[in-house]
């Protein structure tokens, strides 16, 4: 059981690391949003899953409800995160931010 927990947590950490690196490395605002919006979301999913599993160690109704509550976070994040991403990207578009393109870089 612990193995699963460790696995999930590490996976989540890796995804989050990807997100963090991506935020730093990507060339422009729109591309940065990709790792930020997705990798982090999945990172949360994985890590919360790990923690929820760990929480179920001492199984009882309370801990089950608690785990469900944690999944509520995940549910919420899955609804909210893309929306937030979308909102930010929309803001960028409306603000008139031009996106980075390959062609431009070459030219």
């Amino acid at each position, binding site marked *: 059981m612990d193995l699963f927990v460790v696995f999930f947590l590490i996976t989540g950490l890796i995804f989050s690391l990807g997100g963090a690196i991506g935020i730093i490395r990507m060339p422009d605002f729109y591309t940065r949003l*990709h790792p930020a*919006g*997705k990798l982090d979301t*999945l990172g949360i999913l994985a890590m919360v899953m790990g923690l929820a599993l760990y929480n179920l160690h001492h199984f009882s109704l309370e801990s089950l*409800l608690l785990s469900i509550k944690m999944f509520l976070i995940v549910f919420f994040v899955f609804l909210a995160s*893309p*929306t937030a991403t*979308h909102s930010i*990207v929309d803001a960028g578009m409306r603000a008139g931010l031009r*996106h980075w393109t390959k062609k431009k870089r070459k030219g």
Partner: protein
Amino acid sequence: MTVSSNGIVKKDGNPAIVFLKSFCSFLITFVLMFLSWIVLSGKFEPLMLWLGGISSFFVAYFFYDLLFPALGAGYLKIFIRFIQYCPWLIWEIIKANFHLLYLTFHPRMKDKIDPHIITFKTNLKSDIAITTLANAITLTPGTITVTADSDGVFKVHSIDRESAAALPGIMLKKVARVFGEKI
């Protein structure tokens, strides 16, 4: 029954039916709220349950039209189909993420990526379907929905060509099936 853009339900048609529909909508909201309460609270003392009931009633009474603005018959069906759709979505997400992870850690990342914006039109009608599709697009490979309007026109920013190529494709079909809409 239509919903205006500011979220107020406009009641037209037979008042009795309208009331019934609102009441059903209220009832479902109430139940949903009460379930949420129990999950959140985790206490089964009478006082807490009473409070939960009152709170749920309160929220449901004032805001039922937000959660279920237009009560169709198929909510339950949609719900079941949505549950079925979820694992697939998660799988897609994981795939997308590995793809993105690959891109991120690639030493010559800037050669790999090629951001551009594509536009396509779907025939989705209901708000919820469009939203689901938009969010799914945002969560999956290298694409982010920029705008999606009520006519079903999507503008998508994609990080590389192959992600863009996959759209709208299978995802649209899945979503359309969930919400029982024509493609």
